[in-house]
Every structure is written in C-alpha cells, then in structure tokens.
C-alpha cells in the first residue's frame, strides 16, 4: 500500500470534495470532520512519500493507469516536490482546523459546497506539485485557479469585482502557459517532463526560436499566476476582500506553488545551461525581482488595511524568491527553495492571526490592533512571532532563508538585490513597530492614552491551536535549518549550478 502513497496525496482530497456534496444533509459538523480527516490522511500520505524519497534517495515515480511514462501520465516526487507536498498538505490541514468558526460564519448556507471548493483547491495545488507531465500541470492549474475564484468570490463587499479582475488576469496567465506548452509540444512531440528534458537537450532544439519563445510564454504565464511585479495588480484586492478562511488558504499557498512550478520548469524541463546560457533575457529577471521587492515593500508601508498590507508584503516576498532562483548560483536557489517553506509558514501565521483579529473585532484596518496584547495575548504573540520571521530575526526561519538569499546575491555580485532585501527588512520592521505602537498605546489620533484595559477576548480554541502550531513551526524550522538544507533542499539543487 505504501507505494500507492503518491497517488493518494491527490486522490484523497479529490474524493473528499466529491463526497462533501452528497453529504450536505449530514450537517456542518460532519462536513468539518470529513474535511479535517481527509486532509490529515493527505498529510500522512505526503509524509510517507517524502520518507520513500529520502530512504531511496531518488525520485519516486508513479504511473497513472499503469502506462509507461511518455505515453501515460506519471507522478514524479523528488526531494523538492516532496517538501512542497508536505508543506501544502500541512498548511491546508492547519487552515481546515482553523476554519471551524470562520467558514461557518462566512458561509452559513453553503458550507459543504464551500468546503468542496476548499478541498478541490488543495487537490489542484498538490496535483500540480506531484505531476511529471506539463499538460497535466495545466489541467490542475485550471482546477486550482477555478476553485480559488469561487472561494475568493465568497468574500465580503466588493469581492466579486476583485475576483472578476483576478479571473480575467488568471485566465490570461493560464493561456500563456498553455500556448508555451503548445509550442514545446510542436517542437518535441512529448509532454512528459523527463522525456522533454532529454529531447530539449538536443543541439538543434537548443537554438530553436520556437522553443525559446515557448519557454518565455510559459514563464510569463507562471509569473502572472504568482503575481510578480508588474503583473501583480490583481492580487492585493482579491486577497484582502476574501473571507478569513479563504485568505488563510489562498494567500500562503497559491504563490508558493507557482514559484515551485517556475523552479521545476526551469531546471527539470529546461536545464541550467539552457536558462542561463541560451535565454537572452535571463539577467533582467533579477532586476524585475529588485523592482518587485522595492515596490511591494513601499506600497505595504502605505496601507491601512492589515490584509492588504500583508498582500503587498507577499508581492515583495515573491520578488525575493524569483530573484534567488534567477541569480544562477547555488546559494540563491537554496535560499529561494527554503524561502518557499518559510514564507508559506509565516504568511499562514500572519493571515491566521489577522483572521482571528477580524473574527473578534470585525475590523481589518490597523486600528483593529488597538489593545491587542490585553484582549488577545496569544494571538498577539503569534502575530509578533510571524512578523519577526518576515523581518528576519533569528531563530525564526525567515532569518535563515534571507541569509541564503543575501549570500547568493553577494556571490553573484548583484548588489542591488542585496540592498533591496535589506531595504525590505527595514520597511517590514518599520511597519511592525507602527502596528505594535497601535497595539500597545492605542491610536493617538482617537485616544489620549488614558483608558481602561479592555477585557480579555481571545480567539476560540480551534483558531488558536493551528496558529500556535504554525508559530512553533516557524521556530522549529528555523532551528533545524541546516538539517533541512542538507537532507532536502540541497538534494533539490540541479547539478551544474
């Protein structure tokens, strides 16, 4: 049974989503239980697969329908995708536990259908990570994109309009990807990633203009999906208008999985030599990343809404990872991959904390932070810890990933990227102190500093538990950085970098 684990990672959430629809009469408790159980089983399957990969010390292949790879579809799970699978299923499980109150509050009438969308989004993300076929990746990209449109449209107020914009931009991104895959297919006749890599290494295809343009279109498509500056305009509005649970699920995972896809396509379908030797525009990307970091950080500084602020910080973080991956050295890519892990955890942590604040106060502006340490001490501690990681204070994992990214930047001699990273940390620290000031001393504009301490009103237990676990994971991952790097991330670095 253990060799079936790679397929189970994708199938369990899919079956859960399909079963949630006929299970509607059984009530919200059953739906919640089914979702949490299914995602726990998914996490177990992901851990078992990662264990298989680590024991064998090579990629695990799974043939769908028992067909040999270039004709059939295969799942390929190596060290990189194994880590991302565990990350995605773990974050999804934490969010599912967290959703007990907020999902019911946001969807009193259609909880089962909401949860079905939730499970399908997780299916899409896991499937994209596990697959070894570029067209299958597109199909699952569609699944995750469609279900995220549905989830985001369930948000409050102008969510429909923000989601509609996302739908248009996201569809354009998917089209770019599909068009690129089309060109590659015409030139190679294959869709399997390993087969493609072999065919594309032939000298006549290395110089082919169609393949170069196919690569460019695919990468642009993925950039639109991950909201890399200047293709990020859809993202902050869509994320900040979303329901609490939706934001916790979509914000940390969608962009990170897109980054994973970019790295996978760059180094598993194409090669280090191709990307950094043949593609003429590869050195421009790190400048795009610098622009993303600077613009994202500065815009975040100008925001009043907590979630919009976080969304712009994600724009900057996407810049970190894209820059690291395109620095063309080992430290940079290590930092980028490790940052997928740490950034998913810290954005999850912060979105959960902000979600709890919104749940209790009903406000999402910075003013909701007022008196936070007295009202919600645990949430406040989690919030502070998450923000420490965003700034990059040891021993949180944010410090270590940033360390690798900066050393990658120094190694490549890309001083603007290093400066942008430090600048972004500084801005994050400024935002942090501004929020802490509001939390401790209240908003000076409305108060004169003399008011009774507000009563304690902590978030409910099902919200606190995943928050505390995530915050603990931030420190744990930080403390075990060297083990994670040598055992997992280091093995994911392609040879020749």
């Amino acid at each position: 049974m253990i060799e079936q684990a790679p397929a189970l990672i994708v199938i369990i959430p899919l079956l859960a989503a399909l079963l949630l629809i006929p299970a509607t009469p059984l009530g919200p408790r059953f739906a919640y239980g089914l979702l949490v159980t299914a995602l726990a089983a998914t996490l177990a399957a992901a851990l078992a697969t990662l264990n298989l990969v680590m024991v064998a010390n090579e990629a695990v292949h799974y043939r769908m329908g028992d067909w040999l790879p270039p004709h059939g579809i295969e799942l390929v799970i190596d060290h990189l995708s194994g880590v991302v699978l565990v990350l995605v299923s773990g974050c999804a499980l934490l969010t599912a536990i967290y959703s007990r109150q907020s999902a019911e509050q946001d969807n009193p009438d259609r909880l089962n259908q909401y949860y079905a969308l939730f499970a399908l989004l997780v299916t899409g993300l896991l499937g994209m990570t596990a697959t070894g076929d570029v067209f299958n990746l597109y199909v699952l990209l569609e699944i995750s994109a469609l279900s995220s449109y549905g989830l985001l449209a369930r948000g409050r107020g102008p969510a429909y309009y923000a989601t509609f914009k996302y739908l248009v931009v996201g569809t354009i991104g998917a089209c770019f990807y599909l068009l690129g895959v089309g060109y590659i297919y015409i030139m190679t006749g294959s869709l399997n990633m390993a087969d493609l890599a072999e065919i594309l290494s032939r000298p006549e295809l290395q110089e082919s203009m169609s393949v170069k343009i196919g690569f460019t279109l695919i990468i642009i498509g993925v950039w639109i999906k991950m909201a890399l500056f200047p293709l990020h305009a859809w993202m902050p509005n869509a994320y900040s208008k979303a329901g609490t649970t939706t934001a916790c699920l979509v914000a940390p995972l969608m962009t990170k999985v897109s980054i994973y896809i970019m790295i996978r396509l760059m180094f598993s379908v194409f090669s280090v030599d191709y990307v950094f030797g043949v593609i003429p525009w590869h050195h421009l990307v790190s400048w795009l990343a610098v622009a993303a970091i600077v613009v994202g950080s500065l815009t975040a500084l100008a925001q009043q809404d907590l979630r919009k602020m976080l969304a712009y910080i994600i724009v900057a973080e996407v810049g970190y990872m894209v820059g690291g991956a395109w620095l063309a050295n080992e430290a940079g890519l290590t930092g980028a991959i490790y940052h997928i892990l740490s950034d998913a955890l810290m954005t999850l942590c912060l979105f959960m904390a902000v979600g709890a604040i919104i749940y209790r106060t009903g406000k999402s502006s910075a003013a909701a932070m007022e008196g936070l340490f007295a009202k919600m001490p645990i949430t406040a501690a989690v919030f502070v810890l998450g923000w420490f990681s965003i700034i990059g204070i040891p021993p949180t994992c944010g410090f270590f990933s940033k360390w690798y990214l900066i050393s990658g930047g120094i190694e490549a001699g890309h001083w603007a990227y290093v400066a942008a990273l430090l600048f972004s940390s500084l801005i994050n620290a400024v935002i942090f102190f501004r929020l802490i000031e509001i939390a401790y001393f209240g908003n000076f504009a409305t108060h004169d500093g003399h008011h009774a301490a507000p009563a304690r009103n902590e978030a409910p237990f099902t919200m606190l538990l995943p928050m505390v676990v995530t915050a603990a994971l931030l420190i744990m991952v930080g403390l075990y950085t060297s083990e994670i790097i040598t055992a997992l991330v280091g093995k994911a670095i392609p040879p020749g970098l």
Partner: protein
Amino acid sequence: MKRLTLIILAACALIMLLAASDLPDWADPASPASSHLSPGFVEQAYEATHTPNVVTAVLADYRGYDTMFETVVVFLAALIIMIILRRTPHRRFCKILPHRPQRQGRDTVLKGAAQLIIPVMQVFALYVLGHGHYSPGGGFQGGVIFGASFILLALCYNLEFTINRFRERIVLLCCAGGALLYAGVGALCLAMGWNFLGYAALAGILGVSEAMARSHGILLVEVGVGITVMAVMVSIYYDLASGGDMREGL
C-alpha cells in the same frame, strides 16, 4: 491605455510570427508531434485497450488522469455558479431580474414539437455516449446532448415544469456523482492492487481479458463523464435562467 494595449498586442503578434519561423510544416509526417508518441498510440492502443477509436483510448485511458480532472473542471463550473448565484432561502425576495417573462407553457406547437424531439434526443445522447469506442463521441458529447434535452424541455414548457421533474438537489448529486464514479473506478483499481485508473484491474471482477477490461473501464468512466456533463448543463441553465432563485424564468 488603449494605445498601450495596441502596442502589447502588436508585440505579441510579432512574437507569434517569430515563433512560427521554425515550426514544422502543416501535416508534416516527419514532425515531432506525429513521429514521437503518435506511432506508439496507433500501433498499441487497439491491442492494449480493445478500443478501435484511438482518440477515446488516449483520452480515457492513456491520459485518463487528465480527463478525470477535466470532468472535475466541468463540475467546478456548476459548483461555482451555484455558490455565487443561487439565493439562500431567507433572501428569496430580493430579485436580480426585475422583468422576468411569465411563461405558462400553453403553446401547443412548442409542446408537441418538444414531445417529439426530446425522447429521440435522449436516445441519441445515449448512443453517442456508448458509441465513443467506435466513432467520434463519448461522455462529453453525449452528456451535452442529454443536458440539452432538459434545456429544451424548460424552454418549451417552463422552468418550474422541468425542475419538478429534475429537482435541483438531484441535479447537484448527479454533478458530483459522475465525477465520483470516475474517481471511484480509479480508486477501485487502486484497491485491487493496481495503480490508480489501471482499468486492467477490473479483469478479475468482470471475468474478461485485461485489454477488454480496459475497454469496459473506458465505458464506465465515459458514463461518469456523461452524467456530470449532463447535470452541469442543466444546473448552469437553472441558475442563469432564473437568476439563481429557481422559481421562474425562461
């Protein structure tokens, strides 16, 4: 802004033309797309799956994993439209469409025509679905024809008449049920000790050869696709025609 759009469009067109420069010729038998994998499909598909229509064999068996998710995409479309549009009971009285045609369905000609056409349509839909192994057809096409027969019923009579015969709850169950049948067949193969969607696992249950079991497996998943597509067509029509409140409409 409009000028910028034009510039971007022109740049895209230029890139497409550049990319077309070294693409293989139309219908070139030596092109990679027709020389790399296709011969393998053409030569082996019949022997391995006992399905004369190679397209069906590739769609539902070799790449059945993709097709399963395409079915889920169709299901998602209905689910999302429902979750966005369909009214909740306590908000029933806020109308989206203020001017809505009142249809009593008294038109004898329309009703008579519908009575003649609909049964034929439904039988034909089943034929298209079942005949996918031999000719163009299969679950997607058959499901669309079947779904269209219900829409025709709603157009010629009225929405309420159709909903009374095909309740919204059943429609939703069919939407999920078809995809569930597909994934369930795959999971059954997995439970029998083969890989997910390895229909050859059904040979033991059905008492036929492995290639024939693959053929039967293809039929089973095509039925699943057909159910989902049919129900999704009907569900989307219900939602859009009544503005989401399921009472009246076209």
